[in-house]
């Protein structure tokens, strides 16, 4: 897998609260932009990987794009951890020879349409008595009746446990989360595509944000966004003929173990959601060490999820990610710039695909907040899906 495949195209729509278009239109805009960026004809795409959460199917893309023969298509369930799963599956299909040019995408009207911060999508709000079914946490029969409805509440439970195990107060945790939220906002203020480009945030504003689910406040949560992003992945050999600056995939992983599927309350250790040995293997497969990473893009449904990334991926000792952030920050001049586009907290929530496109921009040297000389980018969703890219 090492350097056998590369990203040759990225594309995205504007990110807004109300796109005024269908998700199908958004997906097509992003995919066509990515194909144009790659210099690849739509009809030559022969593979697609979809997030199973996406309302736009492979068949809808094949039909609208006039793809001649889609010989391979797949999809990844469980929401956010599809982020690098789509990359892993695209790369595997190309490396094995099943497909040669694969499109991955995510399109959603998550603000004007179905909002993931609400539970009515899982527990229909019709009548006086409503039913929580299945065993998913949150929402299912063992959590919905107790008022545990949405991922953001589960992440609050995870953050609360983290503070306990780290031996810090919730105030100390919030100080670290504030560092993260403010830096992501500063990055967004420098990113013309970010939803929060014109909305500065300071410490006072962060702490004035209303409490949503202790210890997480308003600005600890991701935005709700209408928009889409897409990438085109092909073989390293073909990539060299398409452009001078392909972004190579060094390694890309997925991981599941009992109850680790999002959004979990039953995993044995809620403060460490990466499977055993999984991160060591990721770095070994990528033939790098954590200190080689130039820029990180950590999945940030909440600020806490991104903070945990510093520990998951070996930049801070367990229980010390909060201290690492307070001591080092994550700005362009820090040890490890993180979520340089503003992330889900401040650029927009495209379910992790906008973290992938930012990784590509950083390695091309075209990011709005460019890490000078960026060589290696790490993208990860709490160890459940991860990818390492290089120039």
């Amino acid at each position: 897998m090492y350097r056998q495949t590369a990203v040759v195209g990225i594309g995205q729509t504007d990110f807004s609260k109300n796109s005024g278009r269908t998700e199908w239109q958004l997906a097509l805009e992003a995919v066509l932009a990515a194909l144009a960026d790659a210099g690849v004809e739509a009809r030559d795409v022969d593979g697609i990987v979809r997030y199973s959460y996406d309302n736009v199917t492979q068949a809808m893309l094949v039909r609208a794009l006039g793809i001649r023969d889609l010989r391979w298509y797949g999809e990844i369930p469980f929401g956010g951890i599809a982020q690098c799963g789509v990359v892993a599956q695209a790369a595997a299909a190309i490396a094995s020879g099943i497909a040669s040019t694969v499109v991955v995408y995510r399109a959603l009207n998550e603000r004007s349409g179905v909002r993931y911060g609400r539970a009515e999508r899982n527990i229909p709000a019709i009548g006086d008595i409503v039913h929580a079914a299945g065993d998913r946490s949150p929402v299912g029969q063992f959590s919905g009746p107790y008022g545990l409805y949405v991922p953001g509440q589960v992440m609050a439970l995870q953050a609360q446990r983290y503070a306990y195990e780290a031996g810090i107060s919730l105030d100390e945790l919030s100080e670290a989360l504030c560092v993260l939220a403010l830096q992501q906002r500063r990055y967004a203020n420098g990113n013309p595509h970010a939803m929060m480009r014109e909305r500065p945030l300071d410490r006072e504003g962060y702490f004035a944000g209303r409490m949503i689910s202790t210890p997480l406040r308003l600005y600890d949560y991701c935005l709700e966004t209408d928009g889409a992003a897409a990438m085109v992945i092909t073989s390293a050999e073909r990539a060299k003929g398409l452009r001078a600056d392909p972004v190579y995939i060094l390694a890309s992983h997925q991981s599941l173990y009992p109850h680790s599927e999002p959004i979990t309350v039953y995993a044995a250790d809620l403060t460490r959601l990466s499977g055993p040995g999984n991160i060591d293997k990721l770095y070994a497969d990528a033939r790098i060490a954590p200190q080689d990473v130039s820029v990180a893009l950590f999945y940030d449904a909440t600020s806490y999820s991104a903070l945990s990334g510093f520990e998951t991926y070996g930049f801070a000792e367990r229980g010390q990610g909060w201290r690492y952030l307070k001591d080092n920050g994550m700005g362009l001049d820090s040890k490890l710039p993180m979520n340089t586009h503003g992330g889900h907290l401040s650029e927009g929530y495209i379910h992790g695909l906008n973290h992938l496109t930012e990784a590509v921009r950083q390695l091309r040297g075209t990011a709005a907040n460019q890490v000078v000389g960026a060589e290696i980018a790490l993208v990860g969703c709490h160890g459940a899906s991860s990818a390492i890219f290089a120039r």
Partner: protein
Amino acid sequence: MLVVPKPDTLTQPYWDVARAGKLLLQRCVQCGHTWHPPLPICPTCHAANYEWRASSGRGTVYSCTIIHQAAHVAAQGRTPYLVALVTLAEGPRVVANILNCAMDDVRIGMGVALTFQEIAPGVVLPQFEPAPG
């Protein structure tokens, strides 16, 4: 509006017996492993012959959060409320609200004891409250 559990074939015994004041856990007859939420087979030895055994009702708070913003119409007007994760003495973790305790007094690591709450006629949830003593 009230959110009630919708039992399925696998979980029907859990909810039926909750009405009788017991929290049932699946326990493998072959290897003794105990788990929750329910599974069709033992995840340790894969035996299909499990039994439902009542929990001792002793647990500790693994985590908790006070929810201030309603995320479903059913929670409108009911915030703030507390949701906890409780680790049972038998090992499995369950979701609960901690009854008979001020929200601000719930602490991770505190001992809790099983109780029950009838949220609608015939709909009973296993719940927890501070352990005596």
